[in-house]
């Protein structure tokens, strides 16, 4: 265990020495800043447009432009933006070593390949966790600081209004779910990284798989409808379930189980493949 912790610390040191690691944090900062600026200048117009359907029958009392709205919009970046940033680091974890030609040196140490892979993945997971945490703190913290607290309006097939006192637990659960989704993305990029000797391939490959499957299964062909429940990409936006009035526990459990299955499968494949991989670089 001590050896594993040491390995994780070394891997974390390696991750945070690379400039690309900070691209993720910088990008999230910019995304959140852009969302906040957009809401600050144009938020009211957008809301007026959305609420005009209700305007015929209702007066509105209260403020819907607040820190929770910012956080909700930030959570939507979990679809495309954050997976790219996660893959940027986790896709490089194994292939980066191969690319740099350091694998032979690393594997001469008395550490098993499985332990090394676990340490690498846990270090990558720590990066993912910090990225999502940064997103949550910056999105919610700055949002509440600038716009204050208030109720949240969520547009689904109905217009849902959630009272402010319910929102902390809903956001906590949504971010926890988002963390699980990003862990699956990290595992996918990690698995592809094990197959490759160049980190560009796994990074682009992971992103292409996510975007490609999402587009095909969403817009797509009727035969994809039967496959959709078995694709992990169908569950990436599953955090939105916490912004339903009546949370469907069965659907939520299924979402978590499918993602856990993919997580185990991706890591399993990576470990099985890497254990027998001929290290040539």
């Amino acid at each position, binding site marked *: 265990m001590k050896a594993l912790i040491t390995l994780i610390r070394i891997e974390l040191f390696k991750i945070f020495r690379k400039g690309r690691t900070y691209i993720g944090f910088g990008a999230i900062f910019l995304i959140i800043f852009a969302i906040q600026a957009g809401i600050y200048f144009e938020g009211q117009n957008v809301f007026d447009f*959305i609420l005009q359907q209700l305007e015929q029958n209702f007066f*509105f*009392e209260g403020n819907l432009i607040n820190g929770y709205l910012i956080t909700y919009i930030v959570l939507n970046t979990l679809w495309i933006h954050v997976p790219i940033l996660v893959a940027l680091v986790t896709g490089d974890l194994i292939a980066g070593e191969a690319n740099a030609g350091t694998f032979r040196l690393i594997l001469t140490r008395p550490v098993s390949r499985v332990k090394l892979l676990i340490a690498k993945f846990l270090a990558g997971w720590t990066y993912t966790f910090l990225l999502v945490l940064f997103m949550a703190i910056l999105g919610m913290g700055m949002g509440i600081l600038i716009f204050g607290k208030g109720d949240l309006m969520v547009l689904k*097939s109905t*217009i849902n209004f959630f009272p402010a006192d319910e929102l902390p637990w809903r956001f906590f659960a949504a971010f926890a779910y988002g963390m699980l989704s990003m862990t699956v993305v990290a595992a996918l990029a990690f698995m592809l990284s094990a197959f490759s000797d160049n980190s560009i391939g796994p990074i682009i490959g992971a992103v292409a798989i996510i975007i490609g499957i999402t587009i095909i299964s969403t817009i797509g062909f009727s035969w994809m409808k039967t496959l959709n429940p078995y694709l992990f990409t169908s569950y990436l936006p599953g955090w939105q379930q916490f912004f339903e009035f009546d949370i469907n526990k069965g659907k939520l459990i299924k979402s978590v189980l499918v993602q856990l299955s993919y997580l185990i499968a991706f890591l399993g494949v990576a470990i099985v493949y890497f254990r027998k991989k001929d290290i040539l670089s």
Partner: protein
Amino acid sequence: MKKVGKNMKLLHRAPQSFHRVSQTMIVGFFTLFLVLFFFLPSQSLAQDESRYILESFRKKMEQIESYSADILIKVEVSLIKIKDRKAKVTYTKPNQFDFKAEGFTLLPKKGMEMEYMKIIDEGYTSIYVKEDTVNSLNTSLIKVIPDNPEADIILAEMWIDTSTIILHKMRTYSKNSGSYTIHFYYTDHPFDLPDKIIVEFDVKNSKIPMSFTGDFESLDKPAKKGDGKGRVIIQYANYEVN
């Protein structure tokens, strides 16, 4: 000779046609008489009676200088999901309403701001329609047409219990927000302020654009269908009336 003969014939016919004209005039005058003596007075009486009821109602409501109350708002619209909200309403004569709510609240456009007082104050033409039963109570149905052509409400129907001068139901037809039916429920307040009102209105079953929801799952789902009616139930408590 022929010409003279024709003229003679005309002279013979003249008294007959005069007789017909006078007959028609008599019938016309008689009809006018009937209208003047039976129909118009009944209209006038209907207007007088309805005006009397409405003015009695106005006098009673004008005794209220101001009031405040805690309200609980329940919105029942198929397109909207919102939990019951608490708010405080403050009224100051003649027509000032202030709402303070915990969080975001949807308030119905008609029904909460004593619109009947505004209609009566701005001048109106009223017609007593008939006796009607509302919530097992005998009421008088009065149609009220506001005199102000700029007013949003173009017609109101009010069901008033004439024995107590209490408004039990009102339906308004407005230029901008369709028709509203408001049911008033009372227990025992000194100024007959309602404990509960139910506001009913028409709602469109429209679908929210996916570009706003980001909800891809809703792409092939039809818009949520309701009964085409929206309801807001408002319960009043802790009245403080001055």
